[in-house]
């Protein structure tokens, strides 16, 4: 089982990112669950969502303690949340923003999702949309296929700019 924890702020689309990722994995023929951890958070508060991907039905509902991958949609949450908490040895980090090399010994891949969203003018209520471009980056990392990433986006959104943003993230992420 591959376990992913997504850090973002309320309103940035972390929950939708988790759901898109689960949908894409499902379209890849895998079992997947997406569970947001709901607190009393409101817009702007740090939030966490979880995605599990497996070849067998998933029966675990408790929170992910030891993720294989941590995705940080908003790097500013790193100032208030230990995003690496429980990350498995050999685990990976994907960060929205500039390249940081490694973080505490973990390889941290970086891609400017905000820049990609702004370039495509993917802005809702003043905030850039990060949940669709991040799927392109996750496809580049081999967690989901490119086709499934695009199909998942098209199942949830009609605006083709979302797919273009995912393609851009795929191109820009250096593996």
């Amino acid at each position, binding site marked *: 089982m591959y376990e992913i924890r997504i850090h973002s702020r309320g309103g940035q689309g972390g929950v939708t990112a*988790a*759901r898109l990722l*689960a*949908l894409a994995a*499902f379209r890849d023929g895998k*079992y*997947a*669950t*997406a*569970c*947001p951890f*709901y607190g*009393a958070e409101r817009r702007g508060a740090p939030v966490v969502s979880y995605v599990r991907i497996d070849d067998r039905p*998933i*029966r*675990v*509902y*408790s*929170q992910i*303690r030891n993720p294989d991958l941590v995705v940080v949609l908003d790097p500013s949450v790193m100032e208030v949340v230990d995003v690496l908490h429980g990350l498995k040895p050999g685990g990976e980090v994907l960060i929205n923003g500039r390249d940081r090399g490694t973080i505490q010994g973990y390889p941290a891949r970086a891609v400017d999702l905000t820049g990609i969203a702004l370039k495509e003018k993917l802005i809702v209520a003043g905030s850039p949309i990060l949940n669709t471009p991040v799927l392109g980056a996750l496809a580049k990392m081999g967690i989901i296929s490119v086709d499934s990433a695009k199909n998942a986006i098209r199942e949830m959104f009609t605006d083709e700019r979302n797919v273009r943003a995912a393609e851009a993230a795929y191109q820009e992420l250096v593996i």
Partner: protein
Amino acid sequence: MLTVATGNKAVAAAVKEVRPQVIAAYPITPQTEIVEQIAEYVASGELDSRYIPVESEHSAMAACIGAGITGARTFTATSSHGLLYMHEMVNWAAGARLPIVMANVNRAIGPGWNVWAEHTDAFQERDTGWLQVYVSTVQEAYDATIMAFRIAEHEDVLLPVMVNLDGFLLSHSMQSLETITPGSFVPPLHLPHAIDISNPAGYGTLTGPDEHFRFRWEIEQSMRKSVRVIAETEQDFAERFGRNYGVAEEYRYEDADVVVIAMGTLGKEAEVAVDLLRNEGVNAGSLRIRWLRPFPELDLSGRDIVVIDRDYSFGFGGILAHSLMARSRIEPYSVIAGLGGQEVTFDDIAGFVRDRKPGREFWFGVNGNV
């Protein structure tokens, strides 16, 4: 069709397939998505129902009752405080013999405000004459909602059915979902006591002790008959759509020396704990109880039993544990865990089994050996 959905969206999708004539509901966290999705279906024309955006849960159930007595199929959804606020009408629905289907997204009861999973809300309605089923996956939420209509509306039952799903853990979790077209699986509702203008009758008039007593007995008779109706409905569902449920779901149960019994999502998490224990050489199994009413007759003799209650009756004990003690004459290790969304992992559940003390009660996370 194969898709993915949250537990809430799965319930709404099931309701869309069964097409109630009237839906009355009031939003409450974490049920809100059900109401929003149904409002969306009705607004878009995908669902040709009358949707009544009532001003309270008490009125939601009252509106379902008023619609139901005309012979209409009805649905509502609620959670926690909403369920308790409609308590009076929950009783009324059963007494009026109306096959209303309600989804309840299990949530703790305040104070303080807590929006996370707990079963005490629905357990407090267990004596009202409603059938109650508890589900553990998105698919099961969908399937159970469809089956609930057929079971409720069966001429031998004619009692309301409550479909329970854990708040957030299931209501907001996205999993795969295979939708179906129920077709003749859910036949049109025929309510024998529906209002008939050409044959005026009084409903719920002043009723003396003897008649009242007989009506209560009739509810119990129907509740007993519902055991067979549930079995037949689930079997027919399995034959048509390929998914089989039953009153309780067994996992590595046959040869188990120690059995974990739980409900809802904890019942699924327990299966992972069972695998963990088996790897350690412990002959563990699990049993996920699905139907709280009618409560199942289970032969649990000759095994150690660990019951996890995500509920509590103060001054008494875990309601599931005590129900099993009364019905199946067991002396379980009674674990109280997960109240108010308390995190309970498969590791924790495996720990309950390893540390079990039959006959004792244990409150998880508060050093609570009783």
